[in-house]
C-alpha cells in the first residue's frame, strides 16, 4: 500500500473555449434550424415530440448526475471523489434543463401537439373515458404542478449539493461533507418516490389509456445508464484533453462497471415489463407492444435490445475492456444513441405512429440538445476547480485501485 506520492494541481480549472465551445455552438444552431424546419414544413407534432424527447433526456441525464453524487455521499464512497466535479456540473445544469422541459411540456400541452390522448379541452370532447380520479390526475393544472414541484425539488438539491462542495473547497473541514450526506439522503428518498411519477406523467401519459407500473423504474434505469455513459464520456474526454491526470484505469474500470451493470438492469426492467404484458395477454395492455411490433418499428424494437443490451454485454464483459479508455468511450457513445432510440420507442409509436420518421428533425434536435448539454455542462464545469481538494476521501480516491 503506502501513500501514493502525487504532485497534482487540484486548483486547476477547466477553461471552456476553442473547439469544444465552437462545436457545441454549431450544435445549438443546427438544433434551432431543425426546429424551425419542423415547424415551417408543418410537422408540428413530430417536432414537439422530438423536443419532448430531447428535453426529457437532457433533464434525465442531469438528474442522473445529481443522483450519482447523492449515492456517492450516502454510500460514503471514496473512489469517485476525484471525478465528482463532473456529475456535479451535471447537477448544476439541472435547473436550466428543468426550465427547458417545463417550457416544452407547457407549450406542447396548450398547443395540443402533446398529450392529446387526455387533454382535449372540449374539442372532440368525451373521446376519452377516464375514471373521475384519473380525470383529475390528468388535468393540465395538476399535471403541470407536479412536474414543476418535482423538478424544482431536484434542482434545489442539485444547486445546494454543489454549493456545499464549493464551501468545502474554501473552508475545509468535515462540516460540508456531513451536511452533504444528510441532504443527499433526503434527496434520495424524494427522488426515489417521485421519479416514477415523473416518468408516468411526462412520457407514459402520452398514451393515457395504457399503463404499466414498471414504467417508472424502466425510465429510471434508462436515466441511470445514460447518465453513467454521459459521465464516462465527459471524464474520458477531459482526461484525453490533458485534464484530471489523477484519473487512472481503476477509475475508468469503476465507471465501466456502472455502465455495464445498469445496462443489464435496464434489460431486466425492460423484460419484466414485456413479460408481464406478454404473459397476461390482456388487449388493453398488449396494444402497447402491438404498435411497436409492426412495420417501421419492428426493426427498431430489436435494434433497441441489440444496442442497449447485447453491445454492453458482449463488449464490456471482460475486465480489460472496462479498463480501456477507448472501448468504454465507444460503448458509452453507443449507449447514448441507444437510449435516444429507447426514448424514441417510448414516445413515437403511441403518438404519431405511422407518420414518424428519422430525418432532419430527429438528427437536428438531437444535435441541438447535445450542443446545449455540452455548452451548459462545460461552462458550469469551468466555474470550479476540477477536484474537490478538501473532500475527506480525496486521498482514497487518488490511491483507488481495483
Amino acid at each position, binding site marked *: *500500500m*503506502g501513500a501514493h506520492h502525487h504532485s497534482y494541481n487540484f486548483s486547476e480549472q477547466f477553461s471552456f473555449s476553442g473547439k469544444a465551445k465552437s462545436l457545441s455552438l454549431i450544435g445549438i444552431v443546427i438544433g434551432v434550424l431543425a426546429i424551425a424546419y419542423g415547424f415551417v414544413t408543418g410537422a408540428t407534432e413530430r417536432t414537439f415530440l422530438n423536443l419532448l424527447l430531447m428535453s426529457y433526456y437532457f433533464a434525465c441525464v442531469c438528474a442522473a448526475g445529481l443522483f450519482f453524487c447523492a449515492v456517492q455521499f450516502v454510500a460514503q464512497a471514496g473512489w469517485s471523489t476525484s471525478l465528482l466535479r463532473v456529475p456535479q456540473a451535471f447537477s448544476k445544469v439541472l435547473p436550466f434543463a428543468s426550465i427547458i422541459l417545463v417550457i416544452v411540456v407547457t407549450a406542447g400541452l396548450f398547443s395540443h401537439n402533446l398529450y392529446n390522448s387526455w387533454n382535449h379541452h372540449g374539442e372532440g370532447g368525451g373521446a376519452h373515458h377516464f375514471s373521475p380520479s384519473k380525470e383529475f390526475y390528468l388535468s393540465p393544472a395538476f399535471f403541470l404542478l407536479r412536474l414543476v414541484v418535482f423538478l424544482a425539488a431536484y434542482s434545489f438539491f442539485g444547486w445546494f449539493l454543489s454549493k456545499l462542495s464549493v464551501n468545502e473547497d474554501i473552508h475545509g473541514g468535515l462540516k460540508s461533507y456531513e451536511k452533504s450526506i444528510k441532504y443527499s439522503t433526503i434527496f434520495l428518498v424524494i427522488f426515489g418516490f417521485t421519479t416514477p411519477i415523473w416518468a408516468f406523467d411526462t412520457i407514459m401519459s402520452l398514451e393515457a389509456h395504457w399503463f404499466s407500473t414498471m414504467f417508472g423504474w424502466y425510465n429510471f434505469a434508462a436515466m441511470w445508464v445514460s447518465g453513467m455513459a454521459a459521465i464516462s464520456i465527459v471524464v474520458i474526454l477531459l482526461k484525453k484533453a490533458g485534464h484530471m491526470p489523477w484519473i487512472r484505469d481503476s477509475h475508468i474500470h469503476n465507471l465501466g462497471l456502472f455502465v455495464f451493470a445498469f445496462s443489464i438492469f435496464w434489460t431486466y426492467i425492460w*423484460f419484466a415489463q*414485456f*413479460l408481464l404484458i*406478454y*404473459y*397476461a*395477454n390482456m388487449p388493453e395492455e398488449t396494444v402497447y407492444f402491438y404498435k411497436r411490433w409492426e412495420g417501421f418499428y419492428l426493426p427498431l424494437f430489436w435494434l433497441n435490445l441489440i444496442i442497449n443490451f447485447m453491445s454492453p454485454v458482449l463488449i464490456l464483459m471482460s475486465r480489460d475492456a472496462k479498463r480501456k479508455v477507448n472501448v468504454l468511450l465507444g460503448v458509452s457513445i453507443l449507449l447514448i444513441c441507444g437510449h435516444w432510440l429507447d426514448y424514441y420507442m417510448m414516445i413515437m409509436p403511441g403518438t404519431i405512429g405511422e407518420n414518424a420518421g428519422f430525418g432532419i428533425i430527429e438528427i437536428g434536435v438531437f444535435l441541438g440538445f447535445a450542443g446545449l448539454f455540452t455548452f451548459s455542462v462545460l461552462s458550469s464545469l469551468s466555474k470550479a476547480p476540477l477536484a474537490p481538494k478538501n473532500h475527506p476521501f480525496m486521498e482514497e480516491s487518488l*490511491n483507488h*485501485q481495483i
Partner: protein
Amino acid sequence: MSKIKYILGLFDDPDQMMHGIDKLQENKIGIYDVYTPMPIHGIEDKLGVKRSRLGIVAFICGITGTFTAFSLMYYTMVYDWPMNVGGKPNFAIPNFIPITFELTVLFCALGMVAAFFFRNHLFPGRAPRVMELRATTDRFVIAIDANAIADSTQVDNLLKEAGAVEIKHNERKYVSYE
C-alpha cells in the same frame, strides 16, 4: 542439504512486507507465496500472479445451467406434454427466459462454490492446511521454497533487513489446526 523445506518471513507491517518482496526479487530469489490477513492492493502484479481462471469455470457452469433449463422446459412443455397456457404457443420463448436465467445463475453459483472448495482443498472432515497460523490474524508472511535457493542465510538477512519480526525454518510444508 538440510531438512528445511520452507523459509517463512513474518512481518507485522504490510509496507515492510512489500519492501521485503522487492528486496528478494532484486536478489533473484523466487518467492513461493505470500499470505496476508487482509487483501493488499497491487500484490498480484508485484508477485506476477497469473490471472484467475475462475471466469472460465463460471462460464462453463453457467452455460450448463442454461442448457439444462432450456432443454428440460422444451422436453416437458413442448415435446412430452404440451398444454394450452393462455392461448400462447407451446414453445413460448419469453416464458422460458426467467427460469433459464435462474438456473444459469444457480448452476454458476454452486459451481463456483465447488470450484472454490476443490481449489483450496477444503473438504468436509479435512483439516485445512496452512503454512503459518498467524497469517490469518496479524502476520504478513512471505514463504520461500528452501530447495530452490542456494544460500538460506542470505534470505534470512534480506528478510531481517526488510523488517521481518520473525523468521521460521520449517521442515514441514503445512501446519494444521489439529
